[in-house]
């Protein structure tokens, strides 16, 4: 298009082009530099790399953005038809060089981006030697995390026969047993390998602060790795639609400042499990609070700071079990709660659907809930009354269980 113009005009054009490109690149970089304002805190080693990659792409994208918008605005001002001008524009059909350039440049850009992305991807997936394995499980609509505790770390003064059967087995076989938590605990600098599975639909495990996300796929186990570098509490979010309570499916990751702090939390958790309280009410509270069962995803229970909205509110459940619900079902309150756990579909509270998983009293079945746990939960829920007194007569419970289901 420059043919027929003088040499000096050509030089000026080149200068203009160089100037415009510089302006675009500077503009892109400025745009990219503004992004930290838009990102959550950088909580993991990987987040640094991902953010750098993002900023790099944003700088290029920003330059292209400015180029296109600038060209539009310039054309709109420069090439608008003056009022009364009914003529046509120049009869130009194309320019092979120009078209080749704007095919080649984007091709080079995406090539660079691909290579850079690949490098970041490979390095974020690197397996670190000292990584800690944490098991994450998604259930509608709650997260639970479990850690393997080696039997060797159980204190020697534990009364083994009072423990749940799976821990007893672990101790006799010198293997390990899991403890469960509703929060994910770790500490700064500890590489983590999450092993994820789901007990129902798909979920996605996402820690925005770590820039890490992995879907939980029904019937499969998936993995993800990251290394926290900043102490604090960050949200864990479900990012894959899993049903009515999807938005509520949140948890926290608590990154302790150092290993000592983390270990003190960890041994507290182990002690809670290996020294089970004799009082069934306390044990029930402990079982529910551990997140071993996904109750908090749907139910509200202020005493345990649950705020689920999909299922019936459990505040004051003891009172209601003894009055409204026992009138409706003709069962004693302890029988009602006990059977509701094993046969939820038969005890629907009016206005709620059959969404609760049916817990099973036999090991090996999905949603296994040992009878002992069931008894403890019933004992605890019975105390959810206005007065705090238990609404139930727990001595009946054994007879009910003995009678079958």
């Amino acid at each position, binding site marked *: 298009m420059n043919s027929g113009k003088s040499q000096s005009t050509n030089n000026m054009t080149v200068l203009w082009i160089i100037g415009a490109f510089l302006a675009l690149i500077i503009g892109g970089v400025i745009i990219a530099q503004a992004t930290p304002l838009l990102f959550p805190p950088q909580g993991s080693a990987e987040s640094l790399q991902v953010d750098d990659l993002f900023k790099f792409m944003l700088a290029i994208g920003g330059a292209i953005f400015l180029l296109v918008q600038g060209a539009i605005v310039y054309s709109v001002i420069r090439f608008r038809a003056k009022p009364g001008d009914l003529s046509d524009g120049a009869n130009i059909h194309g320019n092979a060089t120009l078209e080749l350039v704007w095919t080649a440049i984007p091709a080079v850009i995406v090539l660079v981006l691909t290579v850079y992305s690949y490098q970041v991807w490979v390095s974020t997936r690197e397996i670190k030697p000292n990584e800690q394995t944490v098991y994450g499980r998604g259930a509608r609509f709650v997260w639970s995390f479990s850690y393997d505790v080696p039997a060797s770390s159980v204190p020697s003064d534990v009364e083994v026969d009072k423990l749940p059967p799976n821990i007893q087995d672990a101790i006799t076989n010198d293997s390990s047993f899991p403890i469960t938590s509703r929060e994910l605990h770790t500490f700064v600098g500890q590489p983590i390998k999450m092993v994820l599975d789901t007990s129902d639909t798909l979920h996605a495990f996402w820690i925005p602060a770590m820039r890490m996300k992995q879907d939980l796929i029904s019937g*499969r*186990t998936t*993995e993800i790795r990251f290394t926290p570098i900043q102490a604090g509490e960050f949200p864990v979010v479900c990012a894959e639609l899993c049903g009515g309570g999807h938005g509520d499916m949140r948890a926290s990751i608590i990154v302790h400042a150092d290993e000592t702090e983390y270990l003190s939390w960890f041994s507290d958790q182990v002690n809670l499990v290996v020294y089970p309280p004799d009082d069934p009410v306390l044990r029930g509270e402990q079982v529910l609070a551990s997140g071993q069962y996904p109750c908090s995803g749907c139910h509200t229970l202020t005493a345990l700071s649950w705020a689920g909205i999909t299922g019936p509110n459990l505040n004051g459940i003891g009172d209601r079990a003894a009055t409204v619900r026992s009138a409706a079902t003709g069962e004693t309150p302890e029988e009602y709660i006990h059977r509701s756990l094993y046969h939820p579909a038969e005890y629907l509270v009016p206005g709620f659907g059959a969404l609760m998983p049916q817990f099973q009293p036999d090991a090996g079945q999905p949603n296994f809930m040992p009878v002992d746990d069931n008894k403890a939960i019933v004992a605890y829920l019975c105390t959810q009354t206005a007065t705090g007194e238990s609404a139930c007569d727990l001595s009946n419970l054994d007879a009910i269980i003995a009678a079958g289901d």
Partner: protein
Amino acid sequence: MADEQKPPLTDQKTGEKVSPTPSYPPGEAERMPEPETGLEEAVVNALDASEQAVASPVVQAFDSAVSAVQEAVDQIPGPAKTHAEASAEEHSDTTIIMGRAITVPGGIYTVVFGVLGVATLVEIILAEFPRGLLTIPLMLGLAVVKAVLVVMYYMHLRSDSRVFTVVLLLPVAVTLLSTLYLITVPVTGY
């Protein structure tokens, strides 16, 4: 009617004058397929070239094999032959099918049917005998050959427009890609 008013048309690509087709009845001009131009021509040319380069020996070999078989069949003496000699080539044979007398031309279709039947028999025999390393590829290969035969001869793809070949090959390519991909995806775990 007003056909003489046609303007000279030019091909944008070459700049050459396109001669207007002379004798269309009114209104049929736009319904006639004009000579395949541009992209279509390129695609068809490429296909023809590739066919000449690769497929043509195979097809020709098959054709000659088929005609050899046909000739051999014609040599067999019998009532069919006398009739074939008597009548035009296409009215070669009369057989009784389901109680009715029907003319069966001894043509390529019947030969293909025979080949299909034999190939199927071979497949079944292969399946019933103990499996070897080559059994499965052989069976799949026979199935593909059978499918190609039906498509080429019964569906007339051999002699029909090359565009139809493209129309058939595109989805086949896409689905082969997707099927292979689905096989590589592990069913459990990662």
